[in-house]
């Protein structure tokens, strides 16, 4: 009799540690993670020791590991990027490129941005 009562008590209480753990996980993800718009494709930026926190600029260019481009949410190619910039072109562009992409492609894209009239470009990295 005593045994059954104790077991019933344990069943009702077993939920509370679960809630505690889930609460902790929730707070962990709220504090550690930063809310960000999803990137158009999986992206692993290269590492650097830069201290300049990344912020959203006037325009955003994503470069995937296999060289696919996305400018402000629209899929573009190297040839159509200049048209996608519009007139007047944005003064500042954030370039988020995967670390595995060929550096020459990024060099060509930066040259293309410069020729289109972009004043400053920011390359996204993660802290190493």
């Amino acid at each position, binding site marked *: 009799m005593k045994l059954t009562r104790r077991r019933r008590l344990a069943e009702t209480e077993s*939920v*509370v540690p*679960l*809630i505690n753990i*889930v*609460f902790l*996980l*929730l707070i962990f*993800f*709220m504090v*550690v*993670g*930063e*809310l*960000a718009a*999803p990137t158009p494709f999986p992206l692993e*930026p*290269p*590492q*650097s*020791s*830069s*201290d*300049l*926190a*990344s*912020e959203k600029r006037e325009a955003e260019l994503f470069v995937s590991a296999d060289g696919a481009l996305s400018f402000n949410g629209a899929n573009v190619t190297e040839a159509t990027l200049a048209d996608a910039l519009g007139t007047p072109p944005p003064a500042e562009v*954030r*370039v*988020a*490129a*995967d*670390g*595995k*992409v*060929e*550096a*020459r*492609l*990024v*060099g*060509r894209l*930066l*040259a293309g*941005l*410069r020729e289109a009239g*972009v*004043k*400053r*470009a*920011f*390359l*996204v*990295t*993660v*802290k190493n």
Partner: protein
Amino acid sequence: MSLAASRRLARPNNASHARISLTPLIDVIFILLIFFMLASRLSAWQDIDISIASDSGTPQQMTGDLHRVSLLGDGGMLLDGDALSADMLAARLKALPKDARLVVDPAAGVTLESAVRVLDMASGAGIAASLVAEEGKR
């Protein structure tokens, strides 16, 4: 209303009904947890201010201040034509005057990671650096 009836109203007729169920709370917390797991990015992004000034990269406009780091496909690095290791390159960049400009010129097949490593060295040395892709060497 009789005394007995008012007592019945005042007292909850069943103790288990009075207890608030935890299940909806857990449901909501779980949904919030999954939302934050999916919507948040754990690695904070840092920007490199990459100079795209119009006078970088073309030989005609090269001045005495402009230095060139060539990254070779086999992992080698050249600073103004001298083959250097990564540590030596970092030391040489630190020794450059602060108004120097640097052009990082990767060969075909060099990943952005290696190029950014050199850009990072340059910003550590306080030198403005840009990334180019020279047409002639493709």
